[in-house]
């Protein structure tokens, strides 16, 4: 190859002056695969089970049931109060102010007696 041509590298057709041992590329894939380290399987079942791991699911279930129980208890408590309010409202609607006034006029009882009558009733 004439040296002068290399002064114009852009015009030169590149040639690799390197060689490899015979059969190198033919065996390369096999050699590389053989050199790979054993990879930890993503489907490994070699898991060590501790006592904590054994009881953990039961503890989680117990905690879940306890949580549900307390939620229900709280909800029932609210409903009870609501019902009491509804009952109280019903009772008061049954006895209107006019009825009570007419009762008081015809019952001929004084305020003191009426007060204690109502307290005893409750």
């Amino acid at each position, binding site marked *: 190859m004439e040296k002068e041509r290399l002064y114009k*590298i852009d015009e030169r057709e590149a040639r690799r*002056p390197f060689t490899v041992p015979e059969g190198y590329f033919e065996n390369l894939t096999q050699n590389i695969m053989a050199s*790979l380290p054993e990879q930890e399987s*993503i489907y490994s079942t070699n898991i060590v089970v501790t006592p904590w791991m054994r009881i953990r699911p039961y503890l989680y279930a117990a905690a879940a049931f306890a949580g549900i129980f307390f939620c229900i208890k709280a909800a029932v408590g609210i409903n009870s109060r609501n019902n009491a309010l509804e009952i109280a409202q019903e009772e008061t609607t049954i006895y209107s102010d006019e009825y009570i006034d007419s009762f008081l006029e015809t019952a001929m009882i004084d305020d003191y007696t009426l007060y204690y009558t109502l307290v005893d009733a409750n």
Partner: protein
Amino acid sequence: MAMMAYDERRILEMLHEDDFSRRRAFEAIVKNFSEQLYWQIRHMVLSHDDANDILQNTFIKAWTNLDSFMGYSRISTWLYRIAVNETLTFLNKQKTSIPLETDNDGELSLADQLESDPWFDGDQTERQLQEAIATLPERQRMVFNMKYFNEMKYEEISEILGTSVGALKASFHIAVKKIEEYFDKID
């Protein structure tokens, strides 16, 4: 077992399947890219044995870091990046730089070393070209080899090295000028 044909989309799926599929997919990757990666490395380190070692390390690194490959780039780009890093690490570890001319201790120059290398079959001018390339900074040398010997497109090189196409073109042309000036000096 017959080697499967290279289908990048299918390969990416298989890499996340069972162990058997994963290994088959990686084998297809090795078969498809090992030779071009070898030449990329060889042009930088010159020695066949060193290039072979670095190539093995490249694929071992890729295999052990498969889970971190998310598929955002092409597999070739990912592999080239690993190969570039392994090559630069190797060159940095080489404490002694290869002298370009014989010194007083009689150490062989690069041209002399290549002449005695059984895996180099170039003539004197090609040995001197390798000497000229060896004077370039490492990344510039890498750009020159990728473009000149491996005939890669600037866009591919840009993806691998993370350098803009414009900067790569400038780097390549500066490398060409330096090489031509080197020949002027030794003439």
